[in-house]
């Protein structure tokens, strides 16, 4: 079980300190044990990794962002984000990110957590009247089949928006998978009433144009940052091991230069993802997430390409673990708004505010790391 430090507000984000190092190590050990190549292969074929999910749940990872008062761990966002990056590193084929963020958002509004797994829908749920759902569909809902609840934004006929927690019984699913064969189902919603506790006023951070997609993008950025680290580790190891023309290919300058580029992309992506975590629960969060998803999305393609190139044909086989990572990178960069989507958001904002406003805005963004942060979105 994961324990929060005595003071969860400690200066976790400022540098790799003891707590974050221990947390990373614990998470790595747990995931390395359960997310084996066999587990990934089974998940690829549609098998939910029950043992891995149980281990993750037993360690309270899904509750990382739920305050202690509400029965959670009460980690701060940078620490929780680190867990997500590690889950990306290991390609955990389960809805940890969705559940962690879904519970954070829901608990902040409702005061109490619900059973996981939880999914986040980025489409709009329609209400027919009061708490009665209108018939409709929502596409690309991650892990909807495995989830106990789906968090969504519901719109009433008068246009008012609410936060809704859709129970598993409220929808049927049509299977669909992303490039990594992770479930991204289509939900068919019937005309059922939601329970009285399942509809809450829309929290402020969800009022923007991207709604829950903002939190989905946050999660995918963290996962991508972790997955890129993994790609790079795999490629470096392979380059040191694989010989051509009588020496390890890692000694060839062409390979070295490529991997240095991948390292730069990965580092920039990781830095952007960390800024987003530090900006959690501040005014800077939407811009920080946009930058993180845009930067990670752009880097993901380059890192995946380079690492495949270094692996040669070997990385192209089912047998090698690389594709479990790269297929996720390709899928995640397109989910919850691709890089172009978030770049456009940033560009429109920056152009609307004019050149002189850019610098103070960028400084404020990074300075968010200094601000008060809670576990509330």
């Amino acid at each position, binding site marked *: 079980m994961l324990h929060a430090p005595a003071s969860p507000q400690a200066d976790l984000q400022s540098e*790799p300190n003891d707590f974050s190092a221990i947390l990373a190590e614990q998470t790595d050990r747990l995931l390395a044990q359960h997310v084996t190549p066999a587990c990934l292969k089974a998940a690829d074929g549609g098998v939910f990794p029950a043992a891995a999910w149980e281990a993750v749940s037993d360690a309270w990872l899904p509750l990382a962002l739920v305050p202690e008062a509400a029965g959670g761990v009460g980690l701060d966002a940078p620490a929780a984000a680190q867990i997500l990056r590690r889950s990306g590193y290991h390609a955990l084929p389960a809805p940890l990110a969705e559940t962690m963020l879904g519970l954070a958002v829901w608990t902040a509004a409702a005061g109490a957590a619900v059973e996981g797994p939880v999914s986040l829908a980025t489409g709009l749920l329609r209400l027919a009247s009061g708490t009665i759902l209108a018939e409709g569909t929502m596409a690309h809902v991650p892990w909807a089949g495995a989830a106990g609840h789906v968090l969504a934004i519901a719109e009433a006929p008068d246009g008012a928006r609410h936060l809704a927690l859709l129970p598993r019984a409220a929808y049927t699913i049509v299977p669909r998978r992303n490039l990594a064969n992770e479930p991204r189902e289509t939900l068919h919603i019937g005309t059922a009433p939601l329970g009285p506790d399942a509809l809450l006023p829309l929290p402020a951070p969800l009022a923007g144009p991207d709604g829950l997609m903002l939190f989905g993008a946050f999660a995918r950025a963290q996962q991508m940052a972790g997955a890129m680290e993994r790609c790079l580790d795999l490629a470096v190891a392979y380059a040191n091991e694989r010989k051509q023309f009588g020496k390890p290919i890692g000694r060839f300058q062409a390979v070295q230069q490529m991997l240095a580029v991948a*390292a730069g992309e990965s580092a920039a992506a990781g830095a952007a993802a960390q800024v987003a975590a530090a900006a959690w629960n501040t005014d800077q969060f939407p811009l920080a997430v946009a930058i993180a998803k845009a930067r990670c999305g752009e880097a993901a393609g380059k890192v995946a390409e380079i690492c495949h190139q270094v692996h040669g044909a070997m990385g192209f086989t089912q047998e090698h673990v690389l594709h479990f990572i790269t297929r996720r990178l390709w899928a995640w960069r397109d989910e919850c708004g691709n890089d172009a989507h978030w*770049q456009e958001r*940033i560009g429109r904002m*920056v152009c609307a505010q*004019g050149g002189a406003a850019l610098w103070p805005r960028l400084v404020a963004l990074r300075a968010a790391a200094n601000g008060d942060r809670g576990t509330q979105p």
Partner: protein
Amino acid sequence: MRFATVAFPKDAEDLRLQVRRFLEAEKADGRFVPHRSSWNTFDPDFSRRAAKAGYVGLTLPEAYGGHARSSLARFVATEEMLAAGAPCGAHWIADRQSAPQILRHGTQVARDHIIPRICAGECYFGIGMSEPDSGSDLAAVRSKAVRGAGGWVLNGQKIWTTNAHRVHYLLALVRTGDAGADRHGGLTQFIIDMAAPGISVRPIHDLSGNHEFNEVFFTDHFVADDFVVGEVGNGWSMVTQELAFERSGPDRFMSDYRLLTELVDRIGPAPDARQAVETGRLVAHMGALMAMSGSVAALLDRDIVPNVEAALVKDVGTAFERDIPEVARRLVAVEASLDAQDDRFAEALADVALRAPSFTLRGGTREILRGVIARGLGLR
């Protein structure tokens, strides 16, 4: 790689606002026009005023007229200078790397003689590393010093020496012995007094026609022992350390920051899809680089020498710097021209286009940096 998010201490952020106000007043009074190549613009008057305001020698001890602030404080002041396009080229190298080197490794005489003047914004430095046959390959240095009475006698040549015709000193890497098996031995750093005998400077005009680079020739130039920096023969490791300061700062991705803001203004508040996406992409890169560069500053503050991280910042940063004009020219169809009096943006583009090729050369070529990164990754 160590790129943890950095929390800037409150005193650094307070300093930021002071620097910003100082620069706004400077601009308002017409004392400088925001310049796109901020840290390459040599303006001693500005340097003296900045020093008087307390923004030069920020990390240096108070005993030498410095301000005993953290690297993060200096970092913040630096960022503000670059963002404002302040003409800080005169004191830049002295403040960034020469003074810290002399403080760490110089003699007490050299410290007393030089550092207070650097802190006063009155003493400027150049870097004497490159030679005609040693660009990225510093081990190939051939300028030679031999032992004389109370000092050393130098002969040889340096090249690509920025501002050699205007600075007071060079910090030069010179051969004092055999290179040895690892090729890194026998090098020593000397403080070269540009006013002393035995030095001649020949200008090199760049492709804009500007005179910034020089060749410097040493003919029996005498350097007193007091002006030797660090242990004789140990120059290589000192230079390596110096490069971490040189490579990780915001000057490695903010050389043409003002072109980005000019682009935003030129596009205006209602960009088309292409302009919005491409501008947003550049801003996302900038945000990530600011975080990376800040992290390295925090490491430097803890006396860690983050060579690999610094190389990553410079490699990613200079690629970004080169990207800005390439993106800008496609988003706003203008014909760049140095004499486009009528069109400020066309002039901005021309100015940056002609300087951009140097971004990936200065302070270590891209290819050398990537080799450093590859070694840091554990490729062998």
